[in-house]
């Protein structure tokens, strides 16, 4: 996936057939792998923090509902081109939404794997669920890189 108009107002990307299938499936897969609030809002107990933690979880759940609706709309922005590739044109806000959707999937997959400290290949037999979670982490990481790294001058 490559950005095609670095000087343009919108964010315009071109994807080949393989990247289209991957991104389209990720967007339609969302929110199958949901994070399970792995971290509390504070590491130090203080008055009112339980309520703030509950508010955080409620805000995240509500935000995720919004992302779920927008993920489907983002998938519809993948448009076929004459040469067999696909275009994706995003506003700045839509680009941020896509990054949030992708990282939500990535974090959810990490939770599925048991929140390992090191993301190493499995040393023993892995379940189908674990293999899928690892694949989602890799693919979402690829698209996050495409969306962000070039903008930071790292691509």
């Amino acid at each position, binding site marked *: 996936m490559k950005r095609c108009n670095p000087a343009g107002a919108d964010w315009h990307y071109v994807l080949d057939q393989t990247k289209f299938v991957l991104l389209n499936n990720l967007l339609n897969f969302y929110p199958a792998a949901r*994070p399970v609030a792995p971290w509390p809002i504070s590491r130090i107990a*203080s008055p009112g923090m339980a309520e703030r933690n509950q508010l955080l979880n409620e805000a995240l759940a509500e935000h995720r509902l919004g992302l779920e609706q927008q993920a489907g709309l983002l998938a519809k922005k993948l448009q076929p081109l004459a040469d067999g590739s696909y275009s994706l044109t995003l506003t700045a*806000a839509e680009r941020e939404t896509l990054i*949030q959707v992708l*990282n939500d999937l990535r974090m959810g997959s990490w939770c599925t794997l048991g929140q*390992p400290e090191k993301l190493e290949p499995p040393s023993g037999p892995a379940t189908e669920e674990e293999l899928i979670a690892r694949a989602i*982490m890799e693919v979402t990481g690829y698209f996050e890189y495409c969306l962000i790294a070039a903008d930071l001058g790292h691509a």
Partner: protein
Amino acid sequence: MDSASDPVQRPQPHQPEAACSPVSTYEVVCWDDPVNYNDLLTHVFMQVFNWSQSVAEQHLSELLAKGKSVLVTAPPETAEFYVHQLRYYQLHATMEPAA
């Protein structure tokens, strides 16, 4: 999709504080974690705090060296707002009472 809706909200200039909050200021802390890429962290810092890439990367360097970076110190409601914004991107952000 409503392109006018901004997934990154900005805090209001004068957030009302909880009248009986015993802690006056909190540090918004971002912790190192094994999931989020460095470029993502830099990007999110720039988006949420409207920082330059240079400032964002300074905080990233501190986070990588020390395991955490204090991003801002703010009143409770503002700190909570920033934690929510960072969590929408799945960053490991917390609010801790300022020393």
